[in-house]
Every structure is written in C-alpha cells, then in structure tokens.
C-alpha cells in the first residue's frame, strides 16, 4: 500500500525555487533515502511534507488522506513524525521529560507517559542520560533524543533529517541497526535524508536524488549511485559519495 504520496510540490523563497516540482511515493514498510548536494532542497522538502511550510503548488497525501498545507500538529496526529537536522530539544526539560511530552502530545495520559517514555529512552540508548538536562547533551545524544521524541509519537511514517551527521563512525552503527529494527519489528516506514553514503546504501530500498530543488533521478540504490548525472552533481561536493 502506498503510505505517502507527494505530487509535484514546489516552494519558492523570494524567487528562488528551493523545491521545484518534486514527486515521489513511499510504500508502507519501505525505506526511502533522499540524497543531494547541500542546498538541493532536502530539508525544505521535509518541511513541505511535514507541514512546517505550506507548498506553493502540489499535494501531499498520507495514507490516502490529503494533508497538503495542514498544520504540523495535525500531520503528526495523522501518523507522521520527523526529526530536525538542527536539533531542537526542549532545553529546560530532562531527556525523559522531552520524550514524555512527546508521548502526551500523541495522547498518552500524564500518569502513563513517563513509563512509556522511559521505554523509548532505553531503546534509543539514552538510558545513561535519562535525567540529564537535554540542552547539555553532546551531539550524539541530541540526535538520539530527536529520534526518541519522534518515536514516542508512534508514527506510521518517520522523516529523518540527517540523524547520522555529526556522529563518529562507531556511533553510527547502533543507530543504523535501530532504524532497521524500526522497519522490521515496528513496521515503521522511513524517509531519510543522509549524506553518509554507506548508510544510504545499507538502509534504502530506493533512493531519490535531488539537485537544485528538482528530482535528478530515483531508483534502486546501486543503480542510482552509478548514474553519471548523480556523480556529476556530487563531484567536488561530497567526496563520501564515491566511497564504499
């Protein structure tokens, strides 16, 4: 079943077309990787899909329901969660409280939220930091917190904006493993923006390449990364693309 359908969405900022006629669909239970050089419009695309920005044109359908231009909290209630590339913790709250707020926002009662949140905190590996003030966390912790909060809303589809960026290789593996279990055990559909090609190759069922706001190409990971246009768009921009 097609869970997410994005049809020719566009967005301009003062004449600059940040996202230009982008379409894609995501099947339930699959993983879509989105790659592209910096400034290709990846984060803007996420903002359009998740309701943080209204698209100028085009439509977004979630599980068959039109959510184009809906407020972010409505889209969240409809089953979509997202993380932010620039982490946005509720800084005055502890890690556990951050996640508990997310549980409550998704409908859990105040009594049950902390216990349910604690499970999520354990799952993303933040147990050690559970009672720490969130704004003091190191980058790796904040990335995990983004993930934990998004998971706490129990989404059907999860948009991940560079959850691996800023992590050292040893920190990436457990996160990638977690993402795989989310799909396998929880049936969560994943759409993720990532620069780290090893992760894209390992996780994605299909890959969408953006360049200057447009879809350059899409398809299976191996096929896409050998496309000469993709290599050209990335040349000198992201050496990681040529890596293993």
């Amino acid at each position, binding site marked *: 079943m097609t869970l997410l359908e994005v049809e020719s969405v566009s967005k301009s900022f003062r004449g600059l077309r940040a996202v230009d006629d982008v379409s894609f669909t995501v099947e339930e239970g699959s993983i879509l990787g989105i790659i592209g050089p910096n400034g290709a419009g990846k984060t803007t695309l996420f903002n359009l899909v998740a309701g943080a920005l209204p698209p100028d044109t085009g439509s977004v359908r979630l599980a068959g329901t039109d959510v184009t231009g809906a407020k972010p909290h409505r889209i969240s209630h409809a089953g979509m969660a997202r993380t932010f590339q620039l982490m946005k913790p509720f800084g005055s709250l*502890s890690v556990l409280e951050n996640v*508990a*707020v997310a549980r409550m926002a998704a409908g859990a009662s105040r009594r049950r939220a902390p216990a349910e949140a604690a499970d999520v905190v354990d799952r993303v590996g933040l147990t050690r930091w559970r*009672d720490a003030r969130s704004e003091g966390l190191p980058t790796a912790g904040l990335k995990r917190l983004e993930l934990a909060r998004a998971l706490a809303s129990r989404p059907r589809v999860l948009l991940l904006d560079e959850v691996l960026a800023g992590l050292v290789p040893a920190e990436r593996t457990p996160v990638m493993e977690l993402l795989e279990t989310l799909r396998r055990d929880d049936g969560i559909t994943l759409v993720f923006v990532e620069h780290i090609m090893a992760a894209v190759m390992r996780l994605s069922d299909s890959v969408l390449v953006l360049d200057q706001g447009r879809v350059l190409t899409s398809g299976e990971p191996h096929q896409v990364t050998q496309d000469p246009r993709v290599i050209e768009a990335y040349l000198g921009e992201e050496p990681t693309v040529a890596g293993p």
Partner: protein
Amino acid sequence: MTATAEREAAAAPLPRPAWGRHLVAVAVLAVVLVPLPLVLPAAQQSVAVRVLVFAILAIGWNVMSGFGGMFSFGHAAYFGLGAYVSVWLLVERGISPWIGMLVGMVVAGAFAALIGFLALRYRLKGAYFALATFAFAEMLRLIAINSDLVNRAVGYNVPLRSEPSWAYMQFEPGSANYFWIALALTVVALVVTILFLRSRQGRFTVAVRDDEDAAAALGIPVMRTKLITIALSGAITSVAGTFYVQYYFFVDPDVAFGNSVSIQAILPAVIGGVATIWGPVIGAAVLGPLNDVTATVLRNPPPALDFLQGRAGLDVVLYALLLILIVLLLPQGVYGAIRDRVQRRRAGRRPA
C-alpha cells in the same frame, strides 16, 4: 573549564520535578503566615498585604512570560479588568466582589486570549509582542478615561457598608481579614500554577516555550497552547485587581491600567526568579518592604545621610539603584541563585 568538563557539568542530572514538595511548601508557608497579622504592627500589616498583592500580580505574569516565554508588558490590562469589572458590578448592580472576582477572571482571561490571538496571528515576537501587550493595556486605560460607563477619569469609590461583611469583602480598617483573604488568594494562585505546570497542558506550555517547531512537529497545537497559557495568566492577575480595589476602596484608570502596574507585575518575578514557582513570591517579599524602607529612610534619614532630607524623588532613585544591584548580582533572581547554589553543593557531595 574545558569544553568537556563544561558539557558534563551542564548534563548533570536534573532534579526530578518535585510537584508534591512544592505543594507541601505552599501549605507550610500558609500555616506559618496565618498568625502574622496578630504580631505585626498595623503599619507593617499594610506592607504585608501589599506584598501579597504584588505576589499574585507576578504569579500571573510569570505563567505567561516566565513559563510561557511570551514577555508581557501589559499585565495592567488584566489587573485593571479584574478591578473594574468587579467594582462596576458592585457599585452599579450591588453584586458581591467575590462574584465580581470570578466574572473579572473570565473577562480578563478572555481579553488576554483575544490580545494573544491578535498578536500571535500576526506573528509578533519578542519586543514587538511586548509592545503589543503594552498598547492594549494603554488602550484600556484610554477607553476607561473617556467612557461614561465607568465614570471616566474619576473612577470608583467602593461604597462603605454600615457593618463589616464577608459577603462583600469589607471590614473595619486594618482588619486582619484583609491579610487572610490576600494570603488565601495567593495560596490558591500558587496551587493553581503548580497544578497547571504539572498537567499535560502545562508540560505543553513549557515545551512550546523551549522550541515551538519541535512541539508542533510532535503534535502539540501551538496556538491553542499559547492562548490557554495567556488566558490563565490574565485570570490570575485579575484577582489581584479585584482584591486591590476592595482593600484600598478606590480605583481610577491610572491605578488600574497605568503602566506602573505592568512593571509591578514584572519586577517581583524578575527579582525573585523568572519561570520559577517561588520567584514571584520571594520577589514580592523583597520589593514590598524595600519600597517602604527607601521611602522611610529618605523621609527621616539617619544622621550620616542627613543631607538627603527633603530631596524629592530620591527614594525612587534609591529604589531603582537597589533593583539594579539585585539584578546585576543575582541574574537568575533570588530563588534561582539559591537553587543553583544548593544544587551545586549537592552535586559536589555526590561521589564522582
């Protein structure tokens, strides 16, 4: 301090929010303060009542501007509505100020939500938001001055009753009942604030303050959360207005809606500690007497300061200097500074 050490210090465990302990502290405070009017001389008793009025004002302001993060420079609007709605109902309709207080809360809460909606609808933030709140308070002042409905600039005197009456919140001058009522209202305001903050809605308020985009993405309705916070804030502050009129028997547009009222809502919270439960109360306890002390000192200065005698306005200067000193020395407020010190000592004692 190295970067790592700094990070580890910042990530030290937060104390779990101790709502229960806060509620117990409120109860203890109430019990301790009840006998106060029996021991205080009459002059000091009026200072104590003023402290409580300041506290209620600031507790209300702190809900919106401290915990909600939306800086208000116009809380005179809600204080004034609490004052005018209740006194109008009393004088024109003979309705008890207790009922007037409830009606005033509803009116102030609704008006606060309306102001909030307009300001947020047009995406005003920071200083512009504060200016908008100031403008609405000023607008109410001008409407009151120019409206026959509320006696224009003359305002209202509370009609004197032949006998003291609980139903009409009127007692003989200097009665301890005034203090007890103000104390009860302060306790209720504190308890409501604590219960609100620990509720789902209150958690949403703090989350929205900390990061609006993240809150929205997680399913929190940002606008509704802010409006609920603002309405509660306005309703609490209006209670101070209703009580004020009954205590001083008088209100006019400047007393109710003047911008000095807005400042008096801000100062105790800033002095005591913004976005802390006890900050407004502690700040009020510092400011209420301070005002009095500076005025007294300059009216009857000790011999060393004799040269200050009779210079008009100097008490205000001294008051302002003391405020500046407090803000400079305790940027987190009195409560914030004490809390940090206690936490640091606890952290130091814990084995590494």
